[in-house]
C-alpha cells in the first residue's frame, strides 16, 4: 500500500498533502472560521464554558451567537460545572468510526438540577472497557486534536485544536 501511495496511484493524488475540511471529523475552531472560537480558546485553559443571554438570562448549549430564547445578540461567556453522572452507556468493541479507537465508550449523562444542562451524549475516555457503571461520576476533560493549516492572505497559519470528553472521577 505504501508503494501505491508514494506512486500517487492511490486515493486522491491531487490533494498532495493539502488539508480537506470535507473529511475533517473535528470542528473548525479558530477565529478565522468560527464565531464560537472563545469556546475552544477557553477549553485550551481547561474551562468548560457556554453562552448566557444578558437580556433574558437563558443559558444555551451548544453556545450560540444569537440567543435561542429571545434572539438577542447580547451574550456573555460563562463557566458551567464540569461533573455529571452516567445514566447509560455503550461500549463499541469494534467498528468505531475512523479516527476513534475501539473500544469507543459513549454515555448518556445526567446533570444535577443546578446545572444548565439536563442531559448530554458524550464520549468517555481514560477508562478501560468493562469498568464503567451506570451511576458513576464523570468529569470534563480536554485533549489535543490535529492542527490544521488555514490560508491567511499569502501565508499559511497553523491552528492548534482541542476537544473534550468526560472521564471517570477517581474514587
Amino acid at each position, binding site marked *: 500500500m505504501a508503494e501505491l501511495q508514494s506512486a500517487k496511484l492511490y486515493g486522491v493524488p491531487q490533494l498532495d498533502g493539502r488539508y480537506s475540511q470535507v473529511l475533517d471529523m473535528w470542528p473548525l475552531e479558530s477565529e478565522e472560521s468560527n464565531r464560537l472560537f472563545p469556546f475552544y480558546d477557553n477549553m485550551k485553559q481547561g474551562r468548560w464554558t457556554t453562552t448566557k443571554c444578558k437580556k433574558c438570562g437563558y443559558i444555551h448549549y*451548544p453556545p450560540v451567537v444569537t440567543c435561542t430564547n429571545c434572539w438577542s445578540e447580547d451574550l456573555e461567556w460563562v463557566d458551567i460545572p464540569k461533573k455529571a453522572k452516567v445514566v447509560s452507556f455503550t461500549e463499541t468493541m469494534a467498528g468505531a468510526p475512523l479516527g476513534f479507537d475501539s473500544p469507543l465508550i459513549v454515555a448518556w449523562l445526567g446533570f444535577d438540577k443546578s446545572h444548565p444542562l439536563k442531559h448530554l451524549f458524550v464520549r468517555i475516555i481514560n477508562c478501560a472497557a468493562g469498568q464503567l457503571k451506570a451511576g458513576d461520576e464523570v468529569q470534563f476533560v480536554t485533549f489535543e486534536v490535529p492542527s490544521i493549516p488555514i490560508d491567511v492572505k499569502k501565508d499559511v497559519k497553523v491552528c492548534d485544536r482541542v476537544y473534550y470528553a468526560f472521564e471517570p472521577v477517581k474514587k
Partner: protein
Amino acid sequence: MAETKRACIVGGGMCKFGVRAATIFDMLQEATSALSKDIPGLKPQEIDGLIFASTTAGRNSNSLNTAPIVAHRLGLKPTSICVRVDTLCSGSNTAIILAKGLIESGIAEVIMVCGTEKLNMPQRWESVYMNLMTNDHDWDSAMGLAVPPPFFGMIADAHMKKYGTTKAQMGAVSVTNYDYGFTNPLGQFGGRKLTIEEYLDARTVCDPFGLNDCCPVTDGASAVIIASEERAKAMTDRKLVYLRGTGQTATHGMSAGWPGETLADWPHLKKAGEVAYKNAQLTPQDIDVAQTHDCFSISEIIEVEELGFCKKGEGGEFVASGQVRVDGKTPVNTDGGLLTVGHPYGATGARQALEICKQLQGRAINQVKDPKFALTHNLSGVCAQHTVVIYGTEPVK
C-alpha cells in the same frame, strides 16, 4: 374563496434494495421503470413537479444540486417545482408533505416524489465515517456519534429499565418484520425467515442489540406519484387514496436538546402524531395499518406507544402479543419494514407510502382486511425529527 383541491397518492415503484452494484441515478431509473408499470396510464409529460429526497447524494455520489440531474435522467421537464429535500431518514416522507401542500394549493397537479441513497461505498469505513456528518458535526459527532446503534442501544436500555421491556419483546419486532419481509422480493432480506432462537443467538452489535435488532446498510431508490384528485382519477381505475393529514416536529439538533425526561420517552413523536391526527380528523384507533420507522427493534416498540396504538410503556407487550400482525389490532410494517427491506434514508418514506397505497387499494402482498385509514412515520437522525403522514380511502370532509 376557491375550493381547496385534494391530493392523492396514485401508485409507485422501487428498485431492489440491498448492496447494489449501481449509482443513485441507475437505481432511480429502475424505480421509475417500476412506477411506470404500476401506473400504466401515466405519461412522463404529465408530471409537472419533482421533489427528490437524498441526504448523502452530495457526499457519497458527488452530486450537489441534484434535482435537475434527476429530472434529466428520468425524462422529466418540471414546470411547477424541481427541488431536493434533505431530512435524512424522512426525506421522501417530507417530500410527500410538500407535494400535498403544492397540489392542494393548485401550484402543481402531478408530482413525482422520489428518494435514493448510495450508502455502501467502495470501502466500508466511508459509510460509517460519512454518518458523522449526518449528526451535529461539531458537537455530538465529535463525541463519536456516527452510525446510530450506540445511541439507540441506550434508548433500549432506558425503555427496559423504565417500562420492563424485554429482549424477547424486542425479538418479537424482528421476527414479525422478517415474517412480513419474507414475501417482499425487493427487500434486502426478502426470502429470509428469522426464528426467535436465531435472533437471540445473533452476534452482538452493541448492548443490548444483536444483529437482527438493527436495520442494514442499504442502497436503493423509490418513487411515488402524488396528484390532484381529478388527475388521479384520469390516471387509474384503482381506488383513490387521499392524503388526509400530516405532522412534522423537530426539537433539537444535538443531544443537549433531547425533549424527553428519559431516552425512553419521545414527546416529539407524540406531538407529530397529534398534529397529523388532528389534520386528518382521525384518532389512533381509526388507523387500520401503519408503517413506522423500525430502524431498530426498540424504535417500533416506542412508536406504537407514542402514536397511540397502545398505552405508553406497553409497546413490547403489544408487539409480542401479535397486535402488529396482519390480523392484529394495528398491523405495522407489513412489507417488512426497515429491518428487512433495508433503509436507504431518502428512499424509505416513499417505499412506506407505496406499501400504504397498496394496502388501501387492496393489493398488498400481506393484505390487511378492508383498511380505510393508514399512517406512515419516519424518525430522522438520532431521533431528532419525526414525520407522520395519514392516508384514507375517503378525503377529509
